[in-house]
């Protein structure tokens, strides 16, 4: 046991204290950095050595820093993020569609009622050209309401289609970045560190962003994190990232393909991409089909009623509604008026201009079931219900996921978050340790001086 050994132990202490102070400093600096996992100093007792029969300690070893992580919590947060993003994507789209089916002065339900009211009004004076004009105007407004609803849905679908391409590009970028980090982290771990530290923080942040986009499964191995999506398509394996592609399908929509050109679109079920695909490929096409069916069957029923009567000129009634432009069949987008001359409304049942007998057939369309099995009003009401309840569900799911995420993040924060109070206490602790070690050095130094001046007269 010598003074120089004591000195080197003291110097080690100084290093340890200053290393710990640096870590504390780093924690405080990154207290508000998102995704930062707090570090603690790894301080170990240095192996003891024996001096004859006495075993003496050799001071402290500063073993670097360790990040305090909870991988299970992190995984749960990633999963909940997928759910929340998916629900949010659906909610945003549905909220854009909701107004089309909400009662206003121009929605389909209101305009349909207005058309039947105008027909009933005409029955009180079948030859009145004012009342005839009102019927034509109502018919046109209804056709316009159908056109508008259809175009709102298709343009929403189009916007979602663009979103799919953007999401896929983002996924590919993130995959690349994650893959780039894998070998670096693997090296660090091979070099003896148990944890990837700051690099792991970065990778976790990227994986969280990826979770917001699509459903991912994560597995750990010694080559790093392996990420797969959908039906098992690999995104990241070790240092290698695999890009997804989009290609336009026969339905005009962007489909997502994996590296072997297999179509994995339907297996992407959560995250922003999953939610977007759900609305684009299932919800909106369903609504469009219902809308087109209603427009077509309604127009056909009205046209049939027209054909069973006579107009003001005594001629058999012609079509009331038709398909516009080059469309071959009447759909919600193509429905328009076939009549512009008020005299062509087939109100008469006996050929004379004052007869209103055929208007009863036109009015009957309101209460007769269409081939789809519901009256026009009920068919429209079913669509209203569908949109309302889908939106309500997406809202509920989104709120629930947000609330769960909040709880999970709180839990994670209590484990990995920086508590400035704790760091302040640590600062004091390491400051005192440094001061104490410095005092040891000073003491040893003065002991050296005394030793040096032992046996000389200079110290008299």
């Amino acid at each position, binding site marked *: 046991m010598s003074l120089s050994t004591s000195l080197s132990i003291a110097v080690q202490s100084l290093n340890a204290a200053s290393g710990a102070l640096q870590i504390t400093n780093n924690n405080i600096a990154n207290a508000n950095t998102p995704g930062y996992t707090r570090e603690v100093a790894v301080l170990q007792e240095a192996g003891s050595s024996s001096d004859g029969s006495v075993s003496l300690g050799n001071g402290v070893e500063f073993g670097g820093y360790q990040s305090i992580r909870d991988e299970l919590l992190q995984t749960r947060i990633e999963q909940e993020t997928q759910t929340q993003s998916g629900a949010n994507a659906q909610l945003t789209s549905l909220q854009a569609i909701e107004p089309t089916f909400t009662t206003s002065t121009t929605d389909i339900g209101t305009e349909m009622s207005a058309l039947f009211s105008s027909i009933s009004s005409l029955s009180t004076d079948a*030859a009145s050209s004012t009342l005839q004009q009102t019927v034509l105007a109502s018919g046109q407004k209804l056709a316009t309401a159908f056109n508008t609803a259809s175009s709102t849905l298709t343009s929403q679908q189009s916007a979602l289609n663009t979103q799919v391409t953007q999401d896929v590009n983002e996924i590919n970028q993130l995959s690349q970045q994650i893959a780039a980090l894998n070998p670096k982290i693997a090296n660090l771990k091979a070099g003896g560190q148990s944890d990837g530290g700051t690099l792991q923080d970065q990778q976790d942040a990227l994986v969280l962003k990826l979770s917001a986009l699509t459903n991912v499964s994560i597995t750990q191995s010694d080559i790093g994190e392996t990420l797969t999506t959908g039906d098992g398509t690999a995104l990241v394996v070790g240092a290698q990232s695999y890009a997804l592609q989009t290609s336009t399908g026969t339905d005009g929509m962007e489909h997502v393909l994996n590296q072997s050109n297999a179509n994995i679109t339907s297996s992407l079920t959560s995250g922003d991409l999953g939610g977007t695909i759900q609305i684009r490929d299932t919800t909106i096409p369903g609504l469009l089909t219902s809308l087109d069916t209603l427009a077509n069957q309604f127009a056909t029923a009205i046209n049939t009623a027209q054909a069973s009567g006579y107009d003001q000129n005594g001629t058999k009634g012609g079509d009331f509604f038709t398909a516009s432009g080059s469309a071959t069949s009447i759909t919600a987008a193509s429905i328009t008026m076939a009549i512009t001359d008020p005299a062509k409304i087939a109100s008469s049942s006996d050929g004379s201009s004052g007869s*209103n007998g055929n208007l009863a057939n036109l009015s009957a369309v309101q209460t007769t079931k269409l081939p789809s099995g519901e009256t026009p009003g009920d068919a429209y009401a079913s669509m209203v219900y569908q949109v309302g309840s889908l939106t309500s569900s997406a809202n509920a799911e989104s709120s629930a996921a947000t609330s769960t995420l909040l709880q999970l993040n709180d839990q994670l924060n209590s484990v990995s978050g920086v508590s400035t109070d704790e760091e302040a206490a640590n600062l004091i602790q390491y400051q005192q340790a440094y001061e104490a070690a410095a005092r040891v050095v000073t003491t040893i130094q003065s002991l050296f001086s005394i030793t040096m001046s032992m046996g000389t007269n200079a110290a008299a």
Partner: protein
Amino acid sequence: MIPDVQYAMQQSQQNLSAALQQVSTGLRVNQLSDDPAASVNLVKSLATSANIDQYTSNVTSVLSQMQTADSAISSIVTSLNTAITLGTQGATGTNSTANRAAIATQLEGLLTNIVGNANTSFQGASLFAGTATSTEPFVAASTTYTSSNGSTASPLTTATGLNAGSVTTISDATTGETMTFTAVTGNSIATLQSAVASAVSAGTLSAGTTATINAAGQLSISTNSSTEGLVVSSNDAALGAMTAASGTEVADAYAYVGNSNVNKVQVGDSLSVATNLPGSNLLTSGSNVIGALNSLITALKSGTTDEVTTATSAVQTALNSVSNQRISLDGTLSQLESQESYLSQETVTLKSVQTSLVGANLADAATNLSAAETTNSAVLAAAAKAMPNTLFDYLK
């Protein structure tokens, strides 16, 4: 802790906005997702309301129309009563020819009034023409009608073909009935002739009415008495338009050229009312009112006392017929009036259903708003208190 505080403030703010929206719109359901089931029921209820509103409007229009009709019939009844009094007067043996002539003139005036009333229109449509409302139903009759086609150079013949689907009508002022002939492929003027003959046997047309080719090569349809008149119309291109031969007009004779069809208007989900009384039902079924008056005038001018008495009782029969018809009209009028009050009750009921579906109870909404404001203030105050002091504040 900060994210918790932020979340709490966000939630509180959202609740405050929702409460404010309810109070300012008065609605509990502002978008479909607020209550999908209520939203759907609202859609259906509004459709029912729209129908009820329309029925209410229809009742008003129809009432207006039928009250005008009733008023015209009322005038006709008054005129007929006067005619009967005059006829009875004219049948008393003490009347001289001059007196009878004077009475006949008065009766002619009454007849003009009655025809005028029978030709009443409402908003441009004849009230008593059945569904042929664009023309007046009672038209002055003539003994002879001729076709515009046919001339001495190229006369029509009995073999001249008629176009399939063409319609020729002969309305008789004396019988008050109308013969309608619709041609089919292969028909000719000869077919029309035998149709006329059948109509005469059936009593639809007066005895002696014939269809012949006249000296000018035209088709001529005529009665065989100068006091019996017809109105003829045809849309057959082979004949051209049928017009009254000049100078053949019969005084005080009017034929009915409308039809007997009835329009119905829906004034309730399962209630439709007939809105017109065809002139044929009103004035010619049972007996021909105008024809009876015409006979009375003729009897007074040139007939015996017995003939005047007979003619007067024919007018009485006619009046009874009109009164009967009027009963059904009055029945419809009172049905409409009670439907009116039923519909206004329904309107109120539906409105309150709709309010209960999506309306906000304003007292509750105002209370909720005030509670939300209080909560919001409390959350903000708590957040301020909870913003942590750190140890640094104390390590001076």
